[in-house]
C-alpha cells in the first residue's frame, strides 16, 4: 500500500529575534497516520505545530497541506492546546459549535458530545466540568468541523494518570474511526510510543530522527516490551 502524503514541510526555518528555534526542517506527514513530536522543553515542538496550524509563518521554507501552501490560518486543521481554552460564557454545546456559521449544526454537536460522554452537560456552562471533561469538550470542539488534521499540543499534560490514559484511548479511537491525521506534541515519551505510529525527535533545532513504531495499539506482552525498548532508545537520544 502506497502511503499518501498529506503535509510536506521543506526547508523550514523559524527564529525569534536572532534566536533560532527550528532550522532545515524537512518532513512528510502521511494521511491517516498518528505522528508524535518529542524532545526537550523549549526545543521547538509547539513552534512546529503552530507553523502547521498557520498560527506562525516560517522565516524560510514551505509548508503545504494537500498541495496548498499554508500562509494563513490552516482551516483544514484543528488544534487542541495544553489549556482547555474553552469559552466559559457559552454552554457546553455552544462551545462545540461556536466557530460555525451554520445554525443547523446542532445534530453534529450532539453526536460529538455523546461521543466524548458529555451529553448530559450539553446545556451546562463549562465551569461545571472537571479538568478531564473540559479536555473532552475541547476535543469535541476540535472535531466539529471535520478537520483533515488534528494538532494536539500536550492536551493531556494537566490530567491525572488515569484520566490521561482514558483520554489517550478516546483520542486514538476517534482518530482511527474518523480517519483523522493526527500530530501530537508530548513530553511524555511513553505516551508518544503508546499513541503514535511514528515519533519524530526534535533536537538541536532539527528533526534528528524519526522512529517507526509498528507496535502501537497492540496489547500483547511482546508489543509492550518492544514499545518499552523504543521508549528507552528515544530517551537516550534526547539525553546524550
Amino acid at each position: 500500500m502506497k502511503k499518501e502524503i498529506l503535509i510536506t514541510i521543506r526547508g523550514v526555518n523559524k527564529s525569534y529575534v536572532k534566536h533560532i528555534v527550528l532550522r532545515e526542517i524537512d518532513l512528510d506527514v502521511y494521511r491517516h497516520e498518528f505522528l508524535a513530536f518529542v524532545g526537550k522543553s523549549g526545543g521547538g515542538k509547539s513552534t512546529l505545530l503552530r507553523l502547521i496550524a498557520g498560527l506562525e509563518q516560517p522565516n524560510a521554507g514551505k509548508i503545504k497541506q494537500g498541495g496548498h501552501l499554508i500562509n494563513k490560518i490552516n482551516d483544514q486543521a484543528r488544534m487542541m492546546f495544553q489549556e482547555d481554552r474553552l469559552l466559559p460564557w457559552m454552554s457546553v454545546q455552544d462551545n462545540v459549535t461556536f466557530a460555525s456559521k451554520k445554525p443547523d449544526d446542532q445534530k453534529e454537536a450532539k453526536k460529538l458530545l455523546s461521543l466524548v460522554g458529555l451529553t448530559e452537560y450539553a446545556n451546562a456552562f463549562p465551569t461545571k466540568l472537571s479538568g478531564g471533561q473540559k479536555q473532552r469538550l475541547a476535543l469535541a470542539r476540535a472535531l466539529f468541523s471535520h478537520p483533515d488534521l488534528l494538532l494536539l499540543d500536550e492536551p493531556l499534560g494537566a490530567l491525572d494518570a488515569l484520566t490521561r490514559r482514558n483520554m489517550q484511548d478516546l483520542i486514538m479511537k476517534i482518530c482511527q474511526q474518523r480517519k483523522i491525521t493526527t500530530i501530537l506534541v508530548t513530553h511524555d515519551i511513553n505516551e508518544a510510543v503508546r499513541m503514535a505510529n511514528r515519533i519524530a525527535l526534535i533536537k538541536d533545532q532539527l528533526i534528528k530522527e524519526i522512529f517507526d513504531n509498528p507496535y502501537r495499539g497492540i496489547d500483547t506482552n511482546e508489543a509492550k516490551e518492544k514499545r518499552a525498548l523504543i521508549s528507552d532508545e528515544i530517551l537516550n537520544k534526547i539525553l546524550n
Partner: protein
Amino acid sequence: MDNTIILKKINFSFRKIIPWIIPIVIILFWQLIVSVGWVSATILPSPWDVLKDGAELTVSGELPKNMGISLYRATVGFVIGGSIGFVLGFINGLSKIARLAFDSTVQMLRNIPHLALIPLVILLMGIGEPAKIFLVAIGCMFPIYINTYHGIISVDQKIIEMGHAYGLKQSAMIRKIVFPAALPTILMGFRYALGVMWTTLIVAETISSSSGIGYMATNAEQFMDMKTIILCILIYALLGKLSDYIAKNFEIIFLEWRG
C-alpha cells in the same frame, strides 16, 4: 434526615432576615429616643414624622415632581456619559492607534475630580439642566471608560488565539470572545458609575438648582425643616440601594456562567 431539611429551611429564611435586623433596630431605637423625649423632635424628628412628611409631600405632588426631575437628570447624564465612556473604552481597547491617540489624554482628564468643575460649569452653562446633566455625564464617563478599556485589553490572549485558529473573523471575535470576556469588568464599572451618578447629582443639585431632591433638601434647610432634610437623605439612601440592586441583577443575569 427530615430534621436536617427543616433546619436548613429555617436557616435559609433566617439568612434572608439577617440583613434587615440592624436597620430595623436602628429605626426602632430612633423612634424610641424621640418618643420618650431624650432628643427633641425639632432637632431629630422621629421616623414616623419623617414618614408622615413624605406622605404629605407625595400627596401635594412636590416629592414626585422633584424625584422625577432628579431621576431624569441622573438617567440622561448616565446614559450620555456611560455611552461615551463605553465607546471610547471599547475603541481604545481594540485599536492600538486609537489607544495612542486618546488614552493619555483621557487618563489626564480622569485625574481632575469632576466636582471641581462645578464653578466652571455654572459660569459656562448656567444652572439649567444641561449643566447638571453634563456633570453627571462627566462623572459616569470615566469609571465606565476605564473598566471597559481594561476589560478589553486584559482578555486572555490564549483564548483570542484559539478563536483565530478556529477561523473566527473580527466581528465574530468581538461578539463571541472579546465582549463577553470583558463584560465582568465592564459591569464593575457600570456599578461604580451608578454610585458616582448619585453623588454628582446630589452635589450639583445642592449647590445650584431650583428643583430636584438636592434642591428640596437645601430649601428645607432654609426653613429648618428637619423632617424634609432627613426624608431627602433617606431617599438618597434608597435610590443608591436601588441602583446597586439593579447593577447586581445585571451581573446575575449576564454573568450566570461564572456559576
